[in-house]
């Protein structure tokens, strides 16, 4: 299977991770550095914004667990396993940032579930795992797209859009790994 249209998976991963790391860390710094401003701006709408962030946090925690299932499946080749670990790391970063921001807004972050249900019996080979991960990432892109316009605080919309971009890159890379068109359309929905 063709993993990447790069000279090697490692080169592709470095190129990809370099870009996505910059995007998220920039937003994280801006968001966390502006705690007081953020709280002041949010005013009476903090509970609604924290509610949106908590839904996102629950999905991010589930994504972390899903990548763990993939990593422990024994079905992934070494470079794919490394990539899955890196993507899982991104989801952990998203979750950490979301939880901190929810606390900052006076909310209580949801905890990870003790147990998640995944279609593990349907995962027979690497392609199944990649297809499963791609479906979650595409869904995550749509979820963030649906959340971005709901925030009362526009800084949070910006932060959510940054995460959306990262998840869209995950989705594209996973599609490419499956031999599918990595960017099938000009818009996401």
């Amino acid at each position, binding site marked *: 299977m063709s993993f990447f249209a790069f000279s090697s998976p490692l080169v592709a991963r470095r190129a990809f991770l370099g870009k996505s790391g910059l995007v998220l860390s920039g937003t994280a710094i801006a968001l966390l550095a502006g705690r007081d401003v953020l709280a002041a701006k949010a005013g009476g709408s903090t509970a609604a914004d924290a509610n949106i962030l908590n*839904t*996102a946090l*629950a999905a991010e925690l*589930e994504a972390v667990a899903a990548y763990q299932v993939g990593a422990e499946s024994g079905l992934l080749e070494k470079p794919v396993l490394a990539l899955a670990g890196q993507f899982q790391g991104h989801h952990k970063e998203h979750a950490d940032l979301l939880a901190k921001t929810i606390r900052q807004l006076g909310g209580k972050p949801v905890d990870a579930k003790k147990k998640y249900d995944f279609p593990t019996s349907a995962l027979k080979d690497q392609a199944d795992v990649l297809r499963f991960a791609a479906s979650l990432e595409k*869904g995550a892109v749509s979820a963030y797209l*649906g*959340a971005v316009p*709901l925030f009362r605080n526009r800084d949070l919309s910006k932060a959510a859009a940054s995460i959306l971009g990262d998840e869209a890159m995950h989705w594209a890379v996973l599609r490419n790994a499956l031999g599918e068109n990595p960017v099938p359309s000009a818009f996401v929905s």
Partner: protein
Amino acid sequence: MLEGAVLVAALALGDAKAGEDVYSRCLGCHSLEYNRTGPKHCGLIGRRAGSVPGYEYSPAMKRSGIVWSEKALERFLADPGKTVPGTTMTYAGVSDPADRSNLIAYLKKQRCE
């Protein structure tokens, strides 16, 4: 009255196959068979909102009084937060009426095994 008739006609035209593609947008939080960030969707039509065992709903959804008919789903999917203020489905909605009717046609076919 006319609006209701138009809605019923639009829902009747829903394409389940096209709806499966629309459903891919839901997979960040939902699945047909399992409770995830959101509740499972098999057997949705006819179910009382907030009633799937093992899923922790928002108080808003539990007290919504909704029974998931095609019309109720159409309204909810268009704007979840407006239909059930306080829902944890913090999603702006499926804005295209054709996408909604296709999605509903797909969901109608999903029975729990």
